[in-house]
């Protein structure tokens, strides 16, 4: 064969076609409603301000959960599917403790505040420990095998196990829990209104209650604490090193398994705190609440750039605000779809998220 045979090359730019398809869809179906939405936002700034503040409160708890996704994904590249359900178990655990300590709206603040802090710490410990055990039992042995799908499927399985545990938790009616679980196992459980509901902006038409402030405040404290831990302490540095290059970290004498456990522990603790805060704030918890929360938080983590801690916080805030606006200006029925739509759009157009770096793709 001495002569060259030039071959015709046909290329189908699927990626581009897909992006164009999504873009056209957005323009066609979302542009007009979006303009309408903006109009109605401008028409009633008070309402907008109220929704934005609700969004900030939502964003605080979403950010707490999103960090769990980001920490774990940053190190082991596993979408910890069960994380949202861990948050739900946190809410159930804290409710059980609240029942055990028989906290009610009557309890004086001198007693109530310290006990709530104790409950918060215990809840964080519970979810942290649970997350670590699950990692040990279900994910660790799949890690070396090299297939990411196996761990992901395992995580989906754990998610269902957690949900079922939450369901069965409803049957726990020990006398010492003072009946917090109600009489129907499957029904939503109600938390006593333990946080003060004074409106800090009374008279302005905008609502931002003391309980919003507490939720945001506690979240911010935890977020700052986590940030300092990861950036300043030795263990935190080991974590970042492991996330960068696991083999190199192991060569430098870092105990990789322990570091991964640490990511699960930290993420779990934050999810537990989030569960308790949301339970107290909304006054209810139900066994399948983890799905929606998990979806929103994962979207937040991806939006911020998965693996990026500050990104998860920013993403949490944005998703919180977006879902609050969607609740008001579109419809609560569509909010999940909106959040998923955002997730798809980010993944299609900018998979590295807002703050993720896209210099080197991990092969």
């Amino acid at each position, binding site marked *: 064969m001495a002569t060259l045979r030039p071959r015709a090359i046909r290329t189908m730019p699927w990626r581009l076609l897909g992006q164009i398809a999504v873009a056209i869809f957005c323009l066609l179906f979302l542009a007009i409603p979006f303009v309408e939405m903006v109009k109605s936002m401008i028409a009633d700034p008070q309402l907008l301000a109220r929704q934005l503040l609700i969004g900030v409160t939502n964003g605080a708890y979403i950010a707490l959960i999103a960090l769990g996704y980001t920490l774990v994904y940053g190190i082991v590249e596993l979408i910890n599917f069960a994380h949202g359900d861990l948050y739900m178990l946190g809410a159930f655990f804290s409710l059980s403790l609240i029942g055990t300590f028989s906290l009610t709206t009557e309890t004086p603040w001198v007693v109530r505040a310290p006990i709530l802090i104790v409950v918060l710490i215990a809840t964080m410990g519970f979810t942290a420990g649970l997350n670590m055990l699950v990692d040990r039992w279900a994910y660790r042995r799949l890690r070396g095998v*090299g297939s990411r799908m196996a761990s992901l499927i395992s995580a989906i399985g754990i998610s269902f196990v957690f949900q079922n545990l939450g369901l069965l938790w409803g049957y726990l009616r020990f006398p010492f829990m003072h009946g917090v679980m109600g009489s129907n196992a499957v029904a939503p459980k109600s938390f006593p209104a333990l946080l003060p509901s004074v409106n800090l902006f009374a008279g302005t038409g905008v609502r931002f209650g003391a309980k919003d402030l507490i939720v945001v405040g506690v979240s911010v404290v935890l977020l700052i604490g986590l940030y300092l831990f990861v950036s300043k302490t030795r263990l935190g540095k080991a974590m970042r090193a492991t996330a960068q290059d696991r083999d190199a970290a192991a060569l430098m004498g870092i105990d990789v398994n322990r570091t991964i456990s640490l990511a699960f522990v930290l993420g779990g603790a934050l999810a537990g705190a989030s569960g308790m805060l949301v339970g107290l704030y909304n006054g209810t918890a139900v066994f399948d609440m983890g799905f929606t929360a998990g979806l929103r938080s994962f979207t937040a983590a991806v939006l911020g750039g998965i693996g990026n801690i500050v990104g998860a916080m920013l993403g949490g805030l944005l998703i919180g605000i977006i879902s609050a606006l969607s609740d008001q200006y579109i419809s609560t029925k569509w909010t999940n779809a909106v959040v998923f739509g955002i997730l798809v759009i980010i993944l299609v157009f900018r998979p590295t998220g807002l703050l993720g770096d896209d210099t080197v793709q991990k092969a």
Partner: protein
Amino acid sequence: MNTRIRSSLIGGVFGFAIALISGGFAGILAGLVAGLINGFSVPQAEPLNNRAGAVRQGLVASLIASVLTILGIVIRSVLIDPVIGTPLNIASLLISMIGALILGIPVCVIMCVIRTEPPARERIGLAIVIGIVLVTYPWLDQFLNLRFMNEVIPVLVFILMALGLNIVVGYAGLLDLGYAAFFAIGAYAAGMVSSPHFGISLSFWLAIWVAAAVAALFGVILGSPTLPLRGDYLAIVTLGFGEIVPIAIKNLDKVTIHIWNYPLLVNFDITGGTKGINPINRPWLPVIGEFSPSAPTPWYFLILGIMLISIFFISRLRNSRLGRAWTALREDELAAGAMGINTVNVKLLAFAIGATVSGLAGAFYGSYISAIFPESFRFDVSVMLLCMVILGGLGNMSGVILGGIIIQFADRLFLPQFSTVVQKLIVASGNVSLREVNFASDFRLLLFGLTLVLMMILRPQGLVPSGRAARVMPTADAEVSHD
């Protein structure tokens, strides 16, 4: 010897469980099932060489299975039935025991003998045995007064879907968590064109093709932007799609679209909202006439036919240029690209074909229950299908069918029956505190979840590993690319 007995126990445990849970003449069916399972599992555990050995083997295995089944029958009739209010009937107990033996032992022995034949004849022989059991089942059901037909048909629908999902997950290695959405799309597409909803009343035989085409179209629409994504992102995006579809179906009942000030649609009902679409046309055939909800047998053969045709075509795809491309993609996406496979195209095909199968299943199901509602295709259905595929063995159709039977059996027959029995026992024992625990619905998620986790940890290649993986030692990396 040890593995032989252990594999014989598999069928025995099934027989025992069925007999224990469902009482009545179901014990006879239990014997048959136990024999069938052992006919598969015993030669699998230890290859048989000659006929005499096979007969001996089959006898031993089926005896073990039958003893366990009879144990189940006896415990059920002597210990449980009287407590829950059915008096002990010695005659029917004896009939069940003898029936279990008569059906179980020959089936198992025959299958063991068939397995000693050369591969081509072995395959035909197995097909004949299974064919006979499948074809005679409706009459067996009627004869034994089991009334399982209304459960068996949905089971077959779900197995059909699992076979479709297997193309996507098992062959091409794409984790699709929103597969049930295509079922919904197929069902709605068929419902819309063959019901009074829009006044279009196509025959079922046309509507089912519309459903398949629409589902495939949605597969392509969803796939083209998302399939270039990495595997785990794809999983989440498909999950999102699976969530958006029911939301959309539920809320697209009063659609108003203005283009500038010109109203294009005002309060237009696309999907029927929460009340769904109802009634949907049923199929009509000469001789049989219109299929009736009270006579399940034609439905049974219809879905069985759809399933067999699907299996036939899927296996053609599997052994073609395309099927090899799927496997290559699953094993090593980068190398597949370097070997000239257009990875996105091939993934898109897997997605679309998987969606088509699901669309067919949806169209059948909608017509079978003559109605379709938005809530029946949520995430848990997708995960249940995933369970079926993973339990049986990714990428292997007979494994997927077995996995499907086990999961469906557990979910639809075992748990509810178990729950009823336990409830009756609880009531009889006078313990009130446990009375409200519903063992069917309260442990369902745990069943799916534990199946997934345990399979991944203990036996990622599934109960029946795919042919390609079965030739070697079981390994854990059989299912995904290690990129």
